[in-house]
């Protein structure tokens, strides 16, 4: 496997423009001859499919939900970053770029991140033109708020439903292209494998989730925009359907998988309450702008929060990080919450929770102002917990939230398989080892609206269209494999449900490959996962048949892939002998318990290559930092 990032030459600020100028294009008359498959209709997929359709390509688009507008992007709450500098607070492209590189703890590619910062402004312009109703100030100008980990206000938002509004914008553009016949939409259809012929991606094999029919779709290029894989932890803030199948299958077919162990644990979710809980609900991190995080200073202090006097409260973020206080980056906030709970200071039924308190903000600004800012989040919290955050502090706890790891891509967003692209959360992304708040929406949309539609032309223009059709024998072979896997799942007929395996895997991964990890734990997980997988294939019970709407079967296929992928995550975590970004490798910390990076050995991207019947092989893409000085993060002073 050869890793060539194809970063264009020239000064950082000029790279993208120069690249666009030098790229080969496909003329408008030829575009309809090229067929592109886009898997996924989240922000990345919907933006890409609609943009490609509008350019005139023939697009086939897939999602497993019943409508493209229900993709998981819809759940994003807080906002989207752009370096508009509307607030005149010193923001700039360069500052968004450096914030992202530093936030990612120096594990992202400079050229990609710079381009992202440059394109951030166009995203806001595009969304507003589509009718996205961002919050406005009294004079009618766009409003901004600040988001964890940065010193400027550059986040654009629609109340607590920014993702929904951006997705409605992107899927409305998609709807137009569907109507005009440029995009053929296949909802309730799941990609189960990618087809490679002569070393190039030529299509996908899918299952119609209503009829159960398995079929092949050929194209000149395939784009995976299938989102993140945090459901490997079972309990996460992701939608129930989120999975790793498409990218994992692409990996098995030869695409490099980068940094699989990099996942983000979000600091502000509602803590788990019971063993049958199915997901964790995120409380937007914007709440940390006005909420103060604390726990009782005394272990096992069961008094109601209002009865705990000021002096007996430990505002652990404010004390430890006076400059950023409650607005430290996500990983710092999450790790500190876990640490105080591990010390027995946690609150709530399970002892795994900390308070997020609005008392002082309400006293200072009045309940009206606070409600205007967070009203719908308060309602959501109250609906779930039956408690009113205006009267008693919220309880929060970290939850798996975002996958920085993903398929390795070059500057053109192409994976190591020619003709196979990965965009949005599905690629290994510009967020390095840790993503800043409000930057995922930005990246998914930059990839989908502005980067992929241009870079894919370069690839397409170099190959004749329609070379391989779905009747090629390779499609038949892959289809047969997919059918065989489905049959196997249905024929085990054991005793345990899919859900029970998923839960067990999740708990194991959270314990061993979560916020804090160590060698012994990872080695244990690497022993345990194959056992669990063996048990799954021996004892799982998947009811129903193949040729029908069969939800347990869908779930079983996803869990089967997660059970294999989990091993790759642990292997990657074991190999990365440093603490970096979101994760503390317990062996690598400073005396004060802060993370210790190792730039000598690990200033690189770990890219894994699948090996039939053998351990995956590790490759590395070295990362050079020319524009930002390689330095330890410091949120203390």
């Amino acid at each position, binding site marked *: 496997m050869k890793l060539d990032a194809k970063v264009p030459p020239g000064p950082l600020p000029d790279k993208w423009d120069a690249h666009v100028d030098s790229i080969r294009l496909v003329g408008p008359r030829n575009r309809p001859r090229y067929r592109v498959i886009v898997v996924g209709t989240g922000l990345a997929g919907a*933006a890409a499919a609609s943009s490609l359709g509008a350019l005139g390509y023939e697009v086939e688009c897939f999602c497993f939900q019943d409508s493209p*507008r*229900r993709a998981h992007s819809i759940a994003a709450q807080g906002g989207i970053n752009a370096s508009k500098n509307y607030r005149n607070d010193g923001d700039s492209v360069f500052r968004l770029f450096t914030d992202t590189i530093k936030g990612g703890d120096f594990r992202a590619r400079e050229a990609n991140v710079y381009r992202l910062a440059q394109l951030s402004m166009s995203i806001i312009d595009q969304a507003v033109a589509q009718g996205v109703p961002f919050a*406005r100030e009294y004079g009618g100008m766009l409003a901004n708020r600040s988001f964890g980990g940065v010193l400027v206000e550059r986040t654009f938002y629609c109340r607590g*439903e920014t993702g*929904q509004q951006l997705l409605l914008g992107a899927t409305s553009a998609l709807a137009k292209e569907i109507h005009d016949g440029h995009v053929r939409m296949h909802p309730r259809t799941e990609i189960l494998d990618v087809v490679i012929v002569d070393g190039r991606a030529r299509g996908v094999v899918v299952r119609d989730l209503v009829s159960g029919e398995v079929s092949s779709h050929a194209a000149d290029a395939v784009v995976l925009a299938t989102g993140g894989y945090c459901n490997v932890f079972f309990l996460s803030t992701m939608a129930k359907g989120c999975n790793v199948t498409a990218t994992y299958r692409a990996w098995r077919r030869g695409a490099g998988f980068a940094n699989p162990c990099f996942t983000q644990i979000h600091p502000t979710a509602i803590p788990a309450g019971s063993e049958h809980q199915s997901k964790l609900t995120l409380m937007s991190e914007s709440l940390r702008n006005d909420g103060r995080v604390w726990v009782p200073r005394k272990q096992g202090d069961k008094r109601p929060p209002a009865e705990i006097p000021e002096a007996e409260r430990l505002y652990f973020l404010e004390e430890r990080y006076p400059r950023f206080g409650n607005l430290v980056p996500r990983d710092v906030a999450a790790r500190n919450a876990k640490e105080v709970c591990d010390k027995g200071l946690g609150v709530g039924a399970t002892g795994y929770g900390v308070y997020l308190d609005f008392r002082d903000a309400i006293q200072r600004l009045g309940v009206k102002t606070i409600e205007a800012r967070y009203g719908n989040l308060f309602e959501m919290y109250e609906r779930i917990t039956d408690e009113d955050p205006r009267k008693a502090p919220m309880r929060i706890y970290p939850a798996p939230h975002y996958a920085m790891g993903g398929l390795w891509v070059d500057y053109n967003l192409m994976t190591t398989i020619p003709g196979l692209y990965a965009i949005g959360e599905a690629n290994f992304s510009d967020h390095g080892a840790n993503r800043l708040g409000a930057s995922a929406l930005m990246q998914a949309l930059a990839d989908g609206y502005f980067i992929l539609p241009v870079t894919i032309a370069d690839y397409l223009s170099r190959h004749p269209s329609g070379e391989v059709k779905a009747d090629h024998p390779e499609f038949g072979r892959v289809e047969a494999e997919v059918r065989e896997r489905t049959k196997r799942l249905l024929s085990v007929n054991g005793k345990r449900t899919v859900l029970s395996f998923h839960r067990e895997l999740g708990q194991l991964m959270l314990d061993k490959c979560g916020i804090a990890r160590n060698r012994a734990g990872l080695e244990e997980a690497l022993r345990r996962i194959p056992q669990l997988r063996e048990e799954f294939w021996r004892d799982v019970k998947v009811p129903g048949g193949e040729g029908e709407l069969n939800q347990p079967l869908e779930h079983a296929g996803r869990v089967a892939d997660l059970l294999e992928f989990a091993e790759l995550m642990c292997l990657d975590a074991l190999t990365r002998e440093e603490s970096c970004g979101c994760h503390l490798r317990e062996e690598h910390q400073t005396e004060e318990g802060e993370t210790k990076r190792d730039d000598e050995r690990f200033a690189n991207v770990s890219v894994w290559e699948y090996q039939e019947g053998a351990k995956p092989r590790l490759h590395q893409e070295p990362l050079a930092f020319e524009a930002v000085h390689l330095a330890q993060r410091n949120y203390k002073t």
Partner: protein
Amino acid sequence: MKFTLRIWRQDNAKGPGAFVSHGIDGISGDLSFLEMLDLLNEQLTGRGETPVAFDSDCREGVCGMCSLVINGRPHGPNALTTTCQLYMRHFRDGEEITVEPWRARAFPVLKDLVVDRAAFDRILEAGGYVTVHSGPKPDPNSMPVEPAIAEEALDAATCIGCGACVAACPNGAAMLFTAAKVSHLSLLPQGQPERYTRVVKMVEQMEKEGFGGCTNLGECEAACPKGISIKFIGRMNRDYFRAVLKEPIDRRGPMNAQ
């Protein structure tokens, strides 16, 4: 807590379907309705019975995938709440709970509690957008929008397209959904150029899909988990009648890549 669940079971789109009762015990009030159904499915699977098919995805009230009529009410008894955020503490211990799919001619049942809502997507495809290509656009601050207008547009745009409005309407009308989508864009400056052609196309598509007519019963508003107001229906009707009276001539040629 303990419940008897009377659930609509139907093998596929063709099948007749019937209510089947399933008992469930040991349920904590802090489980969501869907988590309770997960647990029921675990038990059914364990006993070699077929689990109940139902749609859900985000489980935080915004994707609009979940869709159950619970005791005769779309999304159950609580106002402004989707099924995925409904908790069992809102039911009486020992209660019999009836669970059905959305019932509407335009939403055929696919299996058990899963319905086909593609008709909504076709309404959006008919005109629910502002025609803009991806590429450079003017700075948004060059076109100020009064915050009250932006907020009202968002009140409409917050519709999650779940279909509860249709399921609640005795006529099976899709007016609230269509009106929310129309009003979101017609309120904003960006939506003005296509304002009148859009409303006509969307309303015509809605009528083609076999949704019923609106007789101002207001059930849709009461059932809407996002609190979309029926005032948007009035808004849409005004735009529609103006459009029909004015009969604007669509002078655009085809806007293909060519």
